[in-house]
């Protein structure tokens, strides 16, 4: 059996394996390339961190990702670019149909974005700098080195601020993460995946490996007989005659989400008749976790305290949402479903289930989770504001939110699906008139049906409904990036000069 040290961690950017949680200070820089030659020179020596575990852990880290325009500007051949997915090539804001799917309409619409909202505004390069407390400025200086200022133009430094392990509304952040099955020990065969598992095939997160379908996600492959430079790239597992530009790389989805913290808590305070316990209960119902991160589904194994259930649970014991509402944010973002609605006992039972018999009308409405997981690496921004202060009418106004980052192998099946079919879907799991209570825009449907409710099923009978939820989260910017493996980075920095300067 292979050990996890066999994995090519030295060719992966570290973010794929680590959240760099100890490196609390960050600088996320959006850059345009003004001189491709200098940019490549800088890239050649840039100390990009790999995913090999270090002891002691590093005190700084640097990660780099490119938009499609960035790759073109650096001289990547169009034939290579065409190997990327359409979502990446067109971009997050490049197509109105996509914006509609993502819920980026109304006040979330790209025309209102602070960055990335149109083709001209899409940054070429995203630099992610991480350092221990107080060291970020020094690290930035070290990184920039001699070519940086001639190579790049800083479009914007995205705000980030460490406020502990919570997001601005006050809930613990990034509790649920998939565990990448680096050694591919878990079968992807649907016969063995009835139930939810948190292990995820590496191909769902890293390009060049088998995904949950047991397949290789499409990515740029290069024939090294035609492009000698490509000999430095790893080979493609599924086609040994070709070199794999995508291998050990990943798509990075970045979205700046502004959070109206006083708006959220003041609304809840008012609905809760200013009773603190009720207010927190409501907030917990919307999020799907209590303020300390405890999930709302009941502990169903005797003798284990609920504390340990932080991530070790599914919604199977709560099909109607009596404990955790069906539309709660964490339930929408990861419904923790398996390939079958309930485990099959025996081949006959499996057949009956596959044929769809014996189900309640409101059962089995959600896709299997494993094809729609995200590895999240976001960071917060804006000053911390505790709920008890947020409810005060004079709560300090400030820009607060999250620089949402997720890493995926397939943008449309993972990020866009979660955003569209789960988060922004007013019909998710049969719910009525509601979108994600936290993330959702409140745009009504074409038929005029409202989507600004939040329903908590109640075992005693009628649902408890909150109406006219204001929008709490607004998209301020976003983009799709490609975060290459380290050999692919070397390939980019070695691209011949004569190819540069002529995008598309």
């Amino acid at each position: 059996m292979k050990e996890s040290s066999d994995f090519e961690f030295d060719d992966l950017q570290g973010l794929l394996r680590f959240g760099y949680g100890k490196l609390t200070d960050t600088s996320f820089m959006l850059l345009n390339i003004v001189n491709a030659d200098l940019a490549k020179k800088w890239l050649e020596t840039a100390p990009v961190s790999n995913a090999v575990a270090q002891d002691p852990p590093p005190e700084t880290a640097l990660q780099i990702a490119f938009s499609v325009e960035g790759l073109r500007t650096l001289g990547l051949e169009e034939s290579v670019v065409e190997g990327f997915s359409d979502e990446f090539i067109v971009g997050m804001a490049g197509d109105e149909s996509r914006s509609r799917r993502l819920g980026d309409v109304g006040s979330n619409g790209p025309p209102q974005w602070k960055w990335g909202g149109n083709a001209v505004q899409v940054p070429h390069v995203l630099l992610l700098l991480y350092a221990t407390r107080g060291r970020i400025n020094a690290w930035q200086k070290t990184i920039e080195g001699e070519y940086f200022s001639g190579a790049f133009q800083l479009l914007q430094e995205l705000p980030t601020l460490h406020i502990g392990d919570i997001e601005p509304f006050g809930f613990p952040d990034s509790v649920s993460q998939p565990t990448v099955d680096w050694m591919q020990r878990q079968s992807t065969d649907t016969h063995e995946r009835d139930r939810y598992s948190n292990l995820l095939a590496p191909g769902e997160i890293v390009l060049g490996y088998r995904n949950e379908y047991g397949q290789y996600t499409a990515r740029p492959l290069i024939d090294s007989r035609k492009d000698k430079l490509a000999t430095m790239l790893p080979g493609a597992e599924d086609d040994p005659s070709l070199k794999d530009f995508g291998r050990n790389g990943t798509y990075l989805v970045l979205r700046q989400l502004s959070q109206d913290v006083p708006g959220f808590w003041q609304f809840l305070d008012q609905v809760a008749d200013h009773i603190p316990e009720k207010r927190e209960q409501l907030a917990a119902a919307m999020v799907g976790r209590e303020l300390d991160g405890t999930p709302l589904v009941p502990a169903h194994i005797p003798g284990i305290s609920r504390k340990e259930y932080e991530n070790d649970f599914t919604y199977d014991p709560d099909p109607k949402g009596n404990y955790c509402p069906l539309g709660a944010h964490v339930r929408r973002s990861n419904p923790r479903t398996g390939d079958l609605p309930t485990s099959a006992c025996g081949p006959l039972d499996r057949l009956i289930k596959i044929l769809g018999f014996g189900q309640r009308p409101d059962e089995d409405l959600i896709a299997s989770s494993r094809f729609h997981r995200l590895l999240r690496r976001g960071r917060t921004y804006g000053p911390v504001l505790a709920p008890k202060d947020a409810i005060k009418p004079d709560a300090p106004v400030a820009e607060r939110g999250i620089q949402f980052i997720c890493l995926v192998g397939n943008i449309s099946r993972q990020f866009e699906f979660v955003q569209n079919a789960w988060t922004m879907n007013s019909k998710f799991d049969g719910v009525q008139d509601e979108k994600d209570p936290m993330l959702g825009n409140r745009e009504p449907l074409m038929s005029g049906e409202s989507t600004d409710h939040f329903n908590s099923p109640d075992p005693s009978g009628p649902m408890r409904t909150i109406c006219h939820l204001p929008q709490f989260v607004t998209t301020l910017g976003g983009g799709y990036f490609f975060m290459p493996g380290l050999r692919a980075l070397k390939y980019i920095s070695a691209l011949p000069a004569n190819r540069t300067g002529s995008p598309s």
Partner: protein
Amino acid sequence: MTPQSGFMIVAAVRDGQLKDLRDLLASMNNLPGHADPDNELIPFGKFERVHFARFVIIEARTAQEIREFGVTPRPWRPALAFLGDIDGDMQTFLLELIERAEPGLKKIFSHCEGFSEENQDLLGWMNANNINAGANYVNWIGRTVRQIHEEAALHRSLSIYLPKIADDVGRENVRALRQKLLSYVEMEKYKGRLTLTPPEPTPPEWKMRNLLHMIGIPLILLLLSPLLLVIALIFALRLRMLERSDPELFIRPSREHLAELTVQEDQDVSNQYSVFGDVKPGPVRLLTFKFILLLTDYVARHIYNHGFLARIKTIHFARWVFMDNNHRIFFASNYDGSHESYMDDFINKVGWGLNLTFTNGVGYPTTRWIVKEGANREHAFKYTQRRHQIPTEVWYKAYPGLTAVDLARNSRIRQGVEIRQSNDAEIREWLSLI
């Protein structure tokens, strides 16, 4: 119970008229690909019996793919198809259509071969150009448009009323709550604000035919079974050989093509889907396809007729239609959710069923024993289904904002109004639906 039926009127578009026709059809829309219910040509919203309707210009965009099989593509002239899913029988519907929209229909069909705007027998022409489906799927046989609207109004009305009384009556007091709701419904009905029309009697002729179909098909199969078993064995081996030798096409659809399709999608909670392609060459493939569709039609009619098609609960109507003398296949569906989730649902929940039918279509990813792999080759499958998809010029849905799951829930709410629940648990369940 009023059974549903479908129509599909198809005619080749006259040379040089394609652009005019497209513009004319676009004039019926208020959003890309979405009909304005009150449009002047065919005011769909005025028809009480139409669930879904669409105009598609069927073009053979993927006609060249069959060359991979060493077969020269057959010529195909772009054809206009007008199809829809309706309550009751087609003949009376066509008459209603002519009555309300004769000028509009004539204007549209005048772009077609064999139709002259003056002195044309419209009914005769439409009948002559109607193609019956090889298989048909109806989410809920017997649920009419009128019923859908009435039940949606009932749900809306109750969902406004219930929160108003819940706390006063007491949430635990479910019997009193039900009593209040039932009285409220009676009052609303009396005031004319709610109607719950009882179902029409099932047409005896349909009942008879349905029964004959239900018994007849298995009976014939049973009688032929000794023969079929022998043939099946040979067929299975032959099919397996074809599966191994058929070329696998891995062609990515162009971004222009995708943009043309996606601009029509996700304007509302449901979407339309039209695909067109070639049947793989040879009698084995065609016979397999026909046999599988015969079975599909049978199970759709007699088994999967109340809210689900295997594990899929998001398809309202679907149909498979052979065209061009069985050389080509057209598939149309009306489904809930986005295209990506429709396809993922297909792959993960009913990939086997999809493989069974479409493995006989050119460009479909390689299957093993006709149920394995296929759709599970994610990229190949997603590419091929998008590549073969064609834009729908005009699409009409009679109940925007409502999914098939919504419709089923609304029917259960209505049922609770008409049939008293026997215990508190059932009452609670009913109340929780509202």
